[in-house]
């Protein structure tokens, strides 16, 4: 079974975000970049399926040369092959990323493609469905349990207030949700070995930018900021404020 895993390089979720001088992207200074946490669930699932069924796991990312570090992480975790589709700038358009990955997928014809539920930078939740549509494949997103048979899969997908069980034939695309597995930590010898492994590079094919970002700002809401004590009177005052001022109870 050949599996393609899509990976993106994102700021660690503990990072504080500051706006860059172009007012459109973030200031990368001081930010620690990591493999998108949801992509780690995807990669882990791929590695487990390989252990069970054999085959090859290829990890792909679309990004600048800076993405080399997350490609090394993928190799250290156990990917057989990594492909960096190089773009001039850090891509922000999901369609562009999906289009480039679709081209690679057409070459290697994977039985299964795994993505993360969302990339925690632009949070667009698009890759899985766009890629699936471009490749004319079924897909299931936000998957927290997966069973793969020789020609079909059964996935449990998180929905509001419950779960759906979805069946689809292979080849198919899945987006991984937390809970799917516990991603492994790469061992030191594997990290060292990964440094010597080859990263296949190719140039991204240009495509139209379907969405343009004109401005980035820090999302903040002016909050009332009334701080009270734990006295009975103050607790009663909080209830009054929520009832009469905020009108939420």
């Amino acid at each position, binding site marked *: 079974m050949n599996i393609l895993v899509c990976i993106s390089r994102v700021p660690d*979720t503990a990072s504080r*975000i500051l*706006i860059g001088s172009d007012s*459109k992207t973030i200031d990368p200074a001081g930010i620690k970049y990591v493999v998108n946490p949801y992509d780690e669930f995807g990669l882990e699932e791929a590695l487990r399926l390989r252990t069970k069924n054999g085959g090859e796991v290829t990890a792909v990312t679309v990004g600048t040369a800076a993405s080399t570090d997350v490609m090394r992480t993928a190799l250290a975790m156990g990917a057989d092959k990594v492909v960096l589709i190089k773009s001039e700038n850090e891509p922000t358009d999901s*369609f562009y990323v999906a289009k480039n990955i679709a081209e690679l997928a057409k070459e290697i014809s994977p039985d299964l493609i795994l993505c993360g539920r969302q990339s925690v*930078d*632009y*949070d*667009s939740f698009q890759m*899985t469905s*766009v890629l*699936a*549509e*471009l490749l004319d*494949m*079924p*897909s*299931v*997103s936000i998957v927290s349990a997966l069973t793969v048979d020789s020609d079909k899969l*059964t996935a449990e997908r*998180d*929905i*509001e207030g*419950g*779960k*759906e*069980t*979805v*069946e*689809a*034939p292979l080849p*198919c695309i899945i987006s991984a949700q*937390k809970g799917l597995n516990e991603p492994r930590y790469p061992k030191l010898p594997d990290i060292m070995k990964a440094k010597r492994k080859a990263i296949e590079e190719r140039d991204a094919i240009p495509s*139209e*930018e*379907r*969405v*343009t*970002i*004109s*401005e*980035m*700002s*820090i*999302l903040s*809401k002016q909050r009332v*900021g*009334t*701080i*009270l*004590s*734990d006295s009975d009177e*103050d*607790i009663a005052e*909080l*209830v009054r404020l*929520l009832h009469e001022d*905020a009108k*939420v*109870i």
Partner: protein
Amino acid sequence: MKKILVYLEAQKDALKRSSYEVISAATQIAAEASVSVTGVLVNGTEQQAKTAGEYGLTDVIIAKHNVAGIYSSTATAKIVADCAKAEGADCVLFSGNAAGLEVAPRVSVKLEAGYVADCVELNVDGGTITALKPVYGGKAAVKAKVNTENQIYSLRPNVFTAKANPADCAVREMSPEVSADDAKAQVTSVTKNEGKLDVLEADAIVSGGRGIKAPENYNIIEDLADALGGAVGASRAVVDAGWRPHSEQVGQTGKTVAPSLYIAAAISGAVQHMAGITTSKFIVAINKDKDAPIFSACDYGIVGDIFDVLPKLTEKIKAVKG
């Protein structure tokens, strides 16, 4: 812009609240851009469709098919895209819920449309929409414009207000051209978390943090949530400790929520947690530590021990709600 199509979802005898929110947003944009709006409901009933009129939508198409058992995202995407083409709609709106987030990107490929997901504002100026969309888990937001002729947006649930605006709704039926081949991915069963309200659907949420100390202490959180008719949430620390299920996790690697009232009990306010609650209308923090970061990002705060404050708060809220 020529025309807006809204994707509707049914629930019991009506539509989902998220669908009414999208209807309200769509009718408002349509009024500003002087275009019309049509809704599309896949495999729904006339009774369900008619309720769209309560929020000002006057035209709904019911697309009935039987190629998929319960539901198929791939078939739905084809139906919505075909419907947009047939109706001459160049703008399609979805709720950014589980179904919308899965179907909208497929429709965007079929219509060669730019798509902005999880919008929290749609501003119209001279017929052009500028969307505001949170990024980096809500730590920042971008203004985004679609460059293509066709445009698609999904709207973050609970952020847009469903405004009552009663009108007569005409319901049309159509038979979509879908075959088994369009329904490769099929939902075979649905399990509901019985009796438990999901944080994504709740108007009030009470979440507990590490300060709850042990899983059996969660009853004080549940009691307050019950008194509010709301849902129980949890911080990442509590979920990672195995005290609460992941379905309750609020924050950047959990669920992004936007209730009217969010109560954070013994949650310090780590940047990942705050990112998931920025679009909540009112945030209340209860924490022993007066220097906890959450106190600088809340509307109301109580400095105190949750084991002392929460039960009292629950009683007082019950008294107000009668």
